[in-house]
C-alpha cells in the first residue's frame, strides 16, 4: 500500500476519440493539483463519470476537498467492493459433478487498485449536477480506513453497513454497530467467500429444465429474452 506517484501518472490518459468533457477534466485537474501524489489512479468516461482513486491515508482529505473546493455537498453513497472472484460462481453448479475451475485472479475495475477490498463513495455538486466517484484501497492485512462522518454526516449509516457487510473498520466512526443484521451475526455476507446458502443447500433448479417453447424455432430459449 505504498505505490506513490508513478502509478498515478501512468493511469491518467483517457480515450481520446470520445468528445471532451471539460467540466469533469477541470475537476480532475483541481484534485490532482491539490492532492498531488495521493491520487493513485483516475478514470474518466466523458459526460458520464469521473472516478478517482486516492491513497488510503488521503481518504478524508479527498472528501473534504470534494466538499469544500468542488462544491460536492451532496453525499450520495459509500460502500465497498470485494474484487476476489467468487469461488462458487453464481451458485449454479451441479452438485454431482466435480466443481469447475474458476479464475482466482483479482482484477480491479476503473481507476485500478492493488488490494482485494476497495472502499468507494460518490458525492455530487447539485448546482452543476457533476458527480465524483472516489475510491481507496484497503490494505489486506489491516482492513481499516478513516471515517467520513466528520466530512459527510450521512456517511454514518453507510459506513455501518459497509462494516458489517465487508468487515472494514472505519477509524473514528462514533457508533460502529450492526445496522441490518442481528448483533451476534458471524461473518460478512457481501464478501465473495461468504456463500449464498440458499444456493448451497439446494441446487438451483433454473438450469435443469430449459425446454424450447412449443412452436418456437429449434433449440431457442423461452422467448423472454428474444427480439
Amino acid at each position, binding site marked *: 500500500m505504498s505505490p506513490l506517484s508513478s502509478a498515478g501518472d501512468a493511469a491518467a490518459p483517457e480515450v481520446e476519440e470520445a468528445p471532451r468533457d471539460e467540466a469533469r477534466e477541470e475537476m480532475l485537474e483541481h484534485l490532482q493539483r491539490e492532492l498531488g501524489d495521493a491520487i493513485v489512479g483516475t478514470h474518466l468516461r466523458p*459526460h*458520464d*463519470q469521473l*472516478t478517482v482513486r486516492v491513497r488510503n491515508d488521503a481518504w478524508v482529505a479527498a472528501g473534504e476537498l470534494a466538499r469544500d473546493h468542488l462544491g460536492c*455537498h*451532496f*453525499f*450520495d*453513497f459509500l*460502500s465497498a*467492493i*470485494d474484487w476476489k*472472484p*467468487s469461488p462458487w460462481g*453464481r*451458485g*449454479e453448479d451441479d452438485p454431482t459433478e466435480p466443481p469447475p475451475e474458476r479464475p482466482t485472479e483479482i*482484477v480491479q*475495475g*476503473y481507476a485500478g487498485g492493488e488490494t482485494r477490498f476497495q472502499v*468507494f463513495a*460518490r458525492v455530487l455538486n*447539485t*448546482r452543476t*449536477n457533476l*458527480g465524483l*466517484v472516489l475510491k481507496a484501497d484497503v490494505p489486506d492485512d489491516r482492513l481499516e480506513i478513516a471515517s467520513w462522518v*466528520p466530512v*459527510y*454526516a*450521512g456517511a*454514518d*449509516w453507510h459506513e455501518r453497513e459497509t462494516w458489517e*457487510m465487508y468487515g472494514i473498520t472505519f477509524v473514528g466512526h462514533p457508533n460502529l454497530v*450492526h*445496522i*441490518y*443484521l*442481528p448483533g451476534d451475526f458471524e461473518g460478512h*455476507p*457481501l464478501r465473495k467467500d*461468504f456463500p*449464498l446458502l440458499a*444456493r448451497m443447500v439446494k441446487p438451483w433448479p433454473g438450469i435443469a429444465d430449459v425446454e424450447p417453447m412449443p412452436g418456437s424455432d429449434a433449440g*431457442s*430459449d423461452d422467448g*423472454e*429474452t*428474444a*427480439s
Partner: protein
Amino acid sequence: MSAVSERDQLRYIAAQAADARVNLELETEGMTLSIGPQHPATHGTLRIVARLDGEQVIAAEPIMGYMHRGYEKLVEARTYPQINTLINRIDWLSSFANEVPFILAAEKLMEIEAPPRAQWIRTIFHELSRIANITLFLGDMGVQVGALTAVFYAFRDREFVLNLIESATGGRFHPNFDRIGGLKEDLPKGWIDETRAVMKRIRSFCDEMDDLLVGNEIFQARTRGIGVIPKEVGLSYGLSGANLRASGVDWDLRRDDKDIAMAWKHADFKVWTHPDGDSFARYWVRLQEVRESTRIIEQLLDGLPSGPIMAKVPRIIKVPEGEAYVQTENPLGVMGYYVVSKGDLGPFRVKIRSASFNNISITPWLLRGVYVPDAIAILGSLYFILGDIDR
C-alpha cells in the same frame, strides 16, 4: 454540518438546564419508548427507540433490518433479466421506477439505447409510478396528524393509476415491464385516452387535497415549523427528492441530468422548491410534483413517437466489462445503481443506492428535542418505504 447539530445540542442542553430547576422537584426520570416495528407511521417494520423526557424526545435511534432481504448479495447470483424481478420489490409503491436506473445502467455498459418510443413510454410509466406513490403519501400524511378523510380519497384515486399500469403491463404493483433494450410490450389500444382522463382526475384529487389539508388550519399548525431541515444538513445526509427540494435546493435529475436516455428533456415542467424545509413544505412540494407529473404525462402522450419498442439485443444478454452508475429521480428521491460487470451473464457487484436509506438517516439528528406527536408527523413527512431502506 456537525456545527449545526452541535449548536442545536447546546441549545437543547441550555433549555434542559433551565428546566432542571423545575424538574428537580418533579424528579422526572425519563423513559424509553419503542415506536414500532408495527406502527402506522412507519410504512413497514421500522422501529424507532426514543429516549423521552416527558413528552420530549432526547435521542432517537432507528432500528432497521426487519425486512433486510440482502438484494446486493442475491443479484450476484442472478442474470440481468432475472434481477429485474428482484429490484421491483425495493420500493414497492413505485416498482417501475426501480427498474429504470438498473436497466439504463446495463444499457450504458452494453452501449445500446432503447428506441425513442420505448424511452417515452418508460418516462410515462416512471411518472405514473410517481403519481401512484405520492398520491398515497398525500392522503397518508393526513392520517399522521389525525385527519382520516384524505387517505380514503387517496386510495380511491390511486386505484385508477394502478389500473392503468395493470392494463398495460399486467402487474398492479410489480410490472416487470422494462427490458434491456426496450420494453416488454407496446401500449394496449385505447390506453392513451384512458390515461388522459385519469390525469384529469388526479389533478382534481390534488385540488381536493389542497382544500382538505393544505388549507386546513389544524394541519398547518401540526406541520408548519416542525422538523425543519436546513439545506446544508440535508445535503450532507444525502437527502434527495422532495425532502431536499422542500429545503430550497433546486435540484431535480429529471431536469438536470441531460445525458440520460429518457424523455423528460422533451417535456416542459417546473421543479418546485420551498424555502421553509419543514414538514409542511415537504407536503406542499410533493403535491405540486404530482400536478407536474400529470402535465409531463400529457405532454409526452401528445408527442409519443411511433416505431419499435425494442432495440436489437442479443438473445443471451452478456454485459461487457466495466462500471456504470445511473441514477434517476424516483418518487422517494434519487435512486441509483452502481453496476460492476466482469463481462458475465450476471453483474459482479451492484450497489443499490436507495433514496429512503439516506432520507431516514437524518432522523437521529432531526428528532432530537421534538415532541412525540410531532415526531410522528415528521416521520410521515419524510416519507419512506421500508423496502427502500432495508433492500
